[in-house]
């Protein structure tokens, strides 16, 4: 393997991105879908930090801080929406989201 270089970090990020994508597409539990989306955002952050180091450009790290902030906002709203939904339907499975066709 030799010296660890940028590409190794990027491949880890790519794996997280792929796992997250598959999670969103295959799981039914909405909470787990939300966590899969968090995986994707984490993959983005790892990419940004690794590229930031590679280019010697700090904005990549700053970007990742903004993404973490946004993830917090998104999680708060998402769980709020989920609670509102749960009140109406008593389920958190995505394929029971069927009043409207999924």
């Amino acid at each position, binding site marked *: 393997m030799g010296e660890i270089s940028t*590409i190794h970090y990027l491949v880890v990020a790519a794996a997280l991105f792929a*796992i997250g994508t*598959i999670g969103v597409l295959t*799981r039914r539990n909405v*909470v787990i879908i939300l966590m899969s989306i968090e995986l994707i955002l984490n993959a983005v952050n790892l990419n940004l930090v690794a*590229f930031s180091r*590679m280019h010697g450009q700090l904005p990549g790290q700053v970007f990742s801080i903004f993404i973490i902030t946004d993830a917090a906002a998104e999680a708060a709203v998402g769980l709020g929406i989920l609670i509102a939904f749960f009140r109406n339907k008593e389920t*958190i499975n995505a394929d029971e989201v069927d009043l409207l066709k999924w």
Partner: protein
Amino acid sequence: MMHTVLFIIFAVVCVAAAINLLAQRHPINSALSLIVVMGSLALLYLLLGAEFVAAVQIIIYAGAIMVLFVFTIMLLNAGEEELSKSSRVAIVFGVPAVAVIVAALAYILSRGAGTAALGDFIGGPKEIGRLLFRDFLLPFEVTSVLILIAIMGAVVLARREER
């Protein structure tokens, strides 16, 4: 050498925990796996010299966001998810799909970024702070609108309806 060993350990832990997140049926187990992912990512950030991001990762992601997740899982009393037939099919196709996506991305990334060296250490909290409050002042301030909306949204949606 140290870098290589640490990288391998935490990269493997990170990806394994991510896979475990999807393999687990109970949301609480998935949430705990996600915390492991976040933690090992924080270590990878440290290896990359991004100390500040690593700290933020632990404090906000693993600390705040995951607490929110766990809290919601408890609140909604989410039980185990039964696998439907379609989700078994999805698992059969999901694993090769992950492999294909990773392979394709790895190919593109290696063509694009190559084996570029990691580069030098580029700065800690001081430099980030300077960037955040000068060049990125506007996005920083605008983020407050984003957070305001999120608070308002969570309150509006989750509040019990008064009749």
